[in-house]
């Protein structure tokens, strides 16, 4: 996988993960182009499209679009299920996840993604194992954290 983008129906990027080295400028251009292309597509259309020399796999969940760019020889359907598994992970962690969870806890969304995919490849596909890793980390936080409340 070359990158993954999450964006809202209004075209706002909610998460971006790049697995290939690209300059900031290129990233912005790619996101802009792709968001436009995908938002222009109708609901019943196919989830795959050719875009430049990549294959784009996307799916909409409520108000959020999940979009992955994979290489020519990669499997589209399994990529679609990568997206779904990630959604399941978010859902389980946040408890019926919504867009706001991802906005306010963006760092968690990144941590969960890193446990699931690394370098653009599936690292751990078991839902239990991924969540176990994240929960362990949360536990560590609670133990080591001295409560402080000021802004």
């Amino acid at each position, binding site marked *: 996988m070359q990158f993954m983008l999450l964006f809202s129906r209004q075209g706002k990027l909610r998460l971006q993960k790049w697995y290939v080295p690209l300059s900031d400028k290129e990233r912005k251009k790619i996101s802009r182009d792709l968001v436009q292309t995908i938002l222009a597509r109708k609901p*019943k259309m*196919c989830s795959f499209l050719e875009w430049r020399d990549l294959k784009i796999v996307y799916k909409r969940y409520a108000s959020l679009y999940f979009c992955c760019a994979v290489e020519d020889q990669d499997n589209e359907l*399994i990529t679609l*299920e990568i997206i779904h598994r990630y959604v399941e992970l978010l859902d389980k962690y946040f408890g019926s996840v919504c867009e706001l969870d991802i*906005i*306010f806890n963006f760092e968690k969304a990144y941590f969960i993604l890193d446990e699931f995919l690394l370098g653009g490849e*599936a690292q751990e596909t*078991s839902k239990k194992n991924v969540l176990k890793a994240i929960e362990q980390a949360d536990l560590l936080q*609670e133990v080591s954290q001295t409560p402080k409340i000021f802004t």
Partner: protein
Amino acid sequence: MPAVSKGDGMRGLAVFISDIRNCKSKEAEIKRINKELANIRSKFKGDKALDGYSKKKYVCKLLFIFLLGHDIDFGHMEAVNLLSSNKYTEKQIGYLFISVLVNSNSELIRLINNAIKNDLSSRNPTFMCLALHCIANVGSREMAEAFASEIPRILVAGDTMDSVKQSAALCLLRLYKTSPDLVLMGEWTSRVVHLLNDQHMGVVTAAISLITCLSQKNPDEFKTCVSLAVSRLSRIVSSASTDLQDYTYYFVPAPWLSCKLLRLLQCYPPPEDGAVKGRLVECLETILNKAQEPPKSKKVQHSNAKNAILFEAISLIIHYDSEPNLLVRACNQLGQFLQHRETNLRYLALESMCTLASSEFSHEAVKTHIETVINALKTERDVSVRQRAADLLYAMCDRSNAKQIVAEMLSYLETADYSIREEMVLKVAILAEKYAVDYSWYVDTILNLIRIAGDYVSEEVWYRVIQIVINRDDVQGYAAKTVFEALQAPACHENMVKVGGYILGEFGNLIAGDPRSSPLVQFNLLHSKFHLCSVPTRALLLSAYIKFINLFPETKATIQEVLRCDSQIRNSDVELQQRAVEYLKLSSIASTDVLATVLEEMPPFPERESSILAKLKKKKGPGAVSVTELEDNKREGGELNGGGDRGPDTAAMAASNASTPSPSADLLGIRSAAPVGAPPASTGSLLVDVFSEAGPAAPSAAVNDDGFLSSAPPSEDPAPPLSEADELLNKFVCKNNGVLFENQLLQIGIKSEYRQNLGRMYLFYGNKTSVQFASFTTTVSCPGDLQSHILFLNVQTKPVEPLVEGGAQIQQVLNIECLTDFSDAPLLNIKFRYGGALQNLTLKLPVTINKFFQPTEMSSHDFFQRWKQLSQPQQEAQKIFKANHSMDTEVLKAKLLGLGTALLDNVDPNPENYVCAGVIQTKSQQVGCLLRLEPNAQAQMYRLTLRCSKDSVSRRLCELLAQQF
């Protein structure tokens, strides 16, 4: 604010995010952000040391601002500080910031690497994973340098936790992708391969991605993975849906792992071991069977996971292309998907069938679905699906169904989406030509094409129809008649006018007997379009007119009248004016004999690769056109273009030369056409240019060949390369040491060595005179893309001593790094003063792409398997040439070894032939190369064929090597 309080809440961050969300306008948002940035900056700069929590919070805010799309130019240091915190939560945010925002700031990288190093050696698995994730996310060269040797150790160590192993495997994969030269598996290879047997499914899932990538690059070293992968796959495929517990996904056992295993197997030919192969075929059959079983769940995830495995299995079956039963079964199962209610499945089935169409075993089976596919082209609502349908029709087209498919594509073109019209036009043009038995059908098709989609008909397409009409005299009359009729439409496309002008100018006489298309009627028809056309078309029409004067003397007065009018003879466009003046003069002073000679019918064009096919290939990139297609085209092209009985020499050359059309159109080619016999000029006519073997002349390449001693150029600029620079370069293609250059003053010797993508070259400059050389300087300029500032080679030198005493020799060391494949050699410019006169000379340094070869030994089976895999037409380069040197076996062998490849014995069935294999190592990628040299001692000729995974490399190697034998 949502009520998530998992882990630590950072209230300040949440408030800030809320504020941003409440901003009513972009301006308000920017204002709020600037306020926050100022606040954070002052906190970071403040005298009071920040505690870890605050630092974390501010770094997180910066990250949020960056992800909103704003630039962040500070905070990196604070993030790096967080890395060494012993609080997990702070460390984690630090790593996230670095992963998202780090650039190759050298100072920082050292600090980051230090922190990573500490965490890697901490033996705390959670910290180790964080560090590995960071390396995998950044993946920079600096990190590869620091950790590429450490991570394999972590990966295979017995006491490493499973989760760390998983991260280590994928971390290594990322580093291997960015810096393959730094990741050396060597001793670890076998232990890494055996991770396929690991108890933990997650470890296998992660490791297999690494193994697949390594296998693609070093298939031989990793080939033991094939049998391991087959047995692992077999265990998964035959397991019940509950056996694998949490690795079962919607009743499908381990779909991700299954797909990855099938993908790994596609790096290899079918297993040679009968038992392994049998087991694999069984697996594939089971997968095909399972896909037919009633679904265990109605959820789309269930069917997607199941079909993902099915499609991957079909890819493997197509890759093997050796099991007719499986191929036909695959085709039938895909056939069921063609009418599935899921758009996704229809799309994938069309795509996958495209590749099945190119296999001889399944081509016929694919053809049976023609009606469904045509229907898809007409009724699919999604353009990307229609595009797949059009591709499949193109792929399944052969002589038996060409007329139907071309007709369907033409009718689709009328309503086709703009985005795919040009490609459709090319495809129709190619199919019409390739399968034309009846040339009137071909002419009709192309004229229809121009009528329906004139704007999308590129030059290549209409050049081609003219080329074919010129070469086939049985279609000329029909073509003239049809184009004459087409021109009568009130609004016809300019491309139609061009074709019409050309064809009537050549063959109008064939229809002139009919009073409805008498010469004057023809002329008036053409001329009625003249004023609506662009300059190049008008130029072409003027040439058609002068041809008319020759064909039909009765039109002479009318045409002269037209040429003479102010709008022609004083046209503000120089080209048009010149043509009008010259044609008018020519028609008035030349005798009919002279006129007839000058304006004779165009001679047949030499047979060559279709320019349309070349264009489609360029448009679609490698893989768009299958080899069979190209070969078919060669075979059938001969038929079409009227007996091409040229030697293999010209055929090969023709195929390697791409045509370069010049902008202004002309159909006479007075100066360069055969009848007059004048030497071709660079301003020659369009069609002669387009179809001539040589392409545009390049007179500017002539090089200043001033004697080095007598008249050195006075300028301080580097001199152009010596005229013999290429020759000198060629001497060093197959050797690394020797004398590069010598004249009365100076001798330059070379010693060089190469390893992987690196090289070191020692240059020895010897002063042959007894007088000192002063201001001796050398500069090396590397080839690269000037426009994009991308270097292909990186050459580093140290300056040499400016004084070289008489009789002395000085040495210079060059360090060379090959960044990507390249064609041009670096230039070495040498300047010095000898007795007051500035000497300035430029040579090509003998650094050629083959220097970065690593030899690859392989068996005959492997060789031909890989040869077959590299079968896209662009991947091959071939030359047939006369022997320039001795054809002695030992000499040839020595040269081929000097080339840097492995010379493979007992591979080619013909013992006279030589085959070699190697991998070119560049920083950006590795390029696999196969070479075959077939000598013909009787004819004193060779045929040299190269197939490389990168087309530019094939071409360059072919050029280089053709000079060597």
